[in-house]
């Protein structure tokens, strides 16, 4: 292939400025309600945001619903975007908020989960390195709603337990133990699914 990875990266860098300017223009047009600009914005960000939504949902259907709801919120609220800070971050926050809102509404339906049992198992780097984001997404989706939410907010949004407890209406203690529990479950699943692979590789 003529286009090596570095060539692609160079092209990306060269057009970065252009893209940022374009993005500003698209955002402005979206704020005016221009349908074409909305479509462009969607094309630009939907795949990434769908990735985020998938991580916060139990399955694809839920993720699609959240993505849809999130984009409606983006389009209706875009006139309030002040071009301070990253637009992608702003969008991502909206997507996360959609999931959070749903979580809060359905919270009462979720059973109280047990907070004990730390297994303290570790998974070797080799195994982790070989697992793709897509596979990890699948594993995260298998978590219970509360584990999934705490894990996502802590690991991917970089929130503290204090912040998480406020967002989710739970105590910091619950947040901490839920996170630990989520990690345990994930590690166990990784070992069960990919442990064999690890053994073969190291053997």
């Amino acid at each position: 292939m003529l286009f090596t990875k570095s060539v692609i990266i160079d092209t990306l860098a060269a057009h970065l400025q252009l893209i940022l300017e374009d993005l500003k223009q698209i955002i402005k047009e979206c704020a005016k309600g221009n349908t074409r600009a909305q479509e462009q914005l969607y094309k630009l960000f939907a795949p990434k945001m769908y990735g985020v939504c998938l991580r916060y949902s139990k399955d694809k259907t839920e993720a699609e619903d959240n993505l849809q709801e999130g984009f409606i919120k983006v389009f209706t609220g875009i006139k309030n975007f002040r071009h301070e800070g990253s637009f992608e971050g702003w969008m991502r926050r909206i997507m996360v908020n959609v999931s959070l809102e749903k979580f809060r509404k359905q919270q009462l339906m979720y059973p109280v989960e047990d907070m004990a049992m730390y297994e303290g198992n570790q998974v070797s780097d080799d195994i982790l390195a070989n697992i793709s984001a897509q596979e990890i997404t699948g594993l995260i989706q298998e978590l219970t709603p509360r584990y999934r939410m705490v894990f996502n907010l802590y690991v991917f949004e970089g929130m503290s337990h204090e912040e998480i407890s406020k967002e989710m209406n739970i105590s910091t203690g619950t947040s901490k133990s839920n996170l630990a529990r989520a990690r345990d479950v994930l590690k166990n699943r990784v070992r069960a699914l990919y442990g064999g692979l690890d053994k073969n590789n190291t053997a």
Partner: protein
Amino acid sequence: MKDDLHMDNMFREKFEDFSVEPPAHVWNNIQEQMVSRRRKKRMAYIGWISAAAVVVFAFIAGWMLNDSSSRITETVVEQQTQQVKPTPETSEPETVQAIEPASSDKQLQQTASKLNEERAFSANENAFVAEVKTTREVQPAITTADRQIGNYELLEARNEIQFVIKQNGLAEIRREEATFDKVEILPESDRVLIAENVQRLNSKKEKNNAWIVGAHVSPGYSAHSSSYSNDYAQNMNEVQNGGVSNVGGGISIQYKTNKRLSIESGVYYAQNSQSTGTSNSLFSAPMYDYAPDMNLAADAPSYANNVSVTRDGIAMNSTAGVVKMKGMPAGAEINAKTESLSDSYATTMVSDGEFSQVFDFIEIPVYLRYKLLDHKFGIDLMGGLSAGMIVGNNAYMENDYGRQNIGSTEDISSVNISGTLGLGFNYDLGRHFSLAMEPRVNYFLNSINTNPDIDYKPYRFGWFTGVYYTF
């Protein structure tokens, strides 16, 4: 703990550029929802506009009623300014006695008795001239709306570059993920097909120039603004001068020059008329040498006005001009100066029923139309000028004998210019057809009567309802 941090970092890195193409129906759903949201918003907006329109129309209606009721009190006292030979063989056709409106009954009585005294000494009398103030102004305002053209082409071109980059970027990720089919990715051929369809759809949308033809029916209400010279007004018994409902219509052709602006012409038929009803003042005025029939004085509408009877016919000063009658309308009576020695009594025609004047126009308009809102439901602002050709000019007396055509109005000019202002609401029924509802105001800029004594400008409120067909 350290291991946990390490794992978190590894996860974060993996998800840095993680993106998955969402299924196509998500975008379709988003679009649908945005459209329905916009529609809801628009309906609320239209609700406000309609409310405002109702208030405005109520105000105008109130103003018109108020205006015409203030005229009812105008009283007529005859006062001869010109000697007319009582013998009909020699009388001049153009002489119509001048009469004077007095401001109150009391003053009227005084004037009357004074006149009686004076008459004993001399047949000559002074003319008391009262001011007649019936000027009114309506200013049609044509708003020139701004044109707004969005330049999306540049945006489009740039986006294509972006898209290439995005795809290259995606290819990287896809290669990594090729082994997993947990998330479906559309085959390349489908992608190309979709892109082509989108492009074709867009290019269709961009076609802005178009011919549009329309057909309308317009129930409307017509009235007028007028003023007269003193001489004319003195012989005019202007009473309960009301507007008249009527129906017009026509066909229109529009050329859309860009997304928002279009120029329009067509052929319309329209009618302007007014009716004159009960003349209460007649029976309180003592100067008529006439004993009114009490049945006539009851609630039934009746009409009375000074007329000039000549060999050629009967002439009468009316709202829109001098009406020439071919003969006596059935059911009407003429009260001439039968028992009086002097000429100080007016010849009066009295009839029960209503007198009305009707003008039929064929109008050729030149309108500009500006789209305020361009969606399935649209709002236009339109305005312009029309040349109105008179094709019908009739006066009617409607009484027990039916609606009789009694003659026509003199000095009506055959071509007149009017201004129109309207608001169009339309709703798309499909690619070609749309329904339209357009309230329009039409106001004649010139007096349609060429007689310098008369300034008569009709106006019309029409509710144009019809269909448009876009080619």
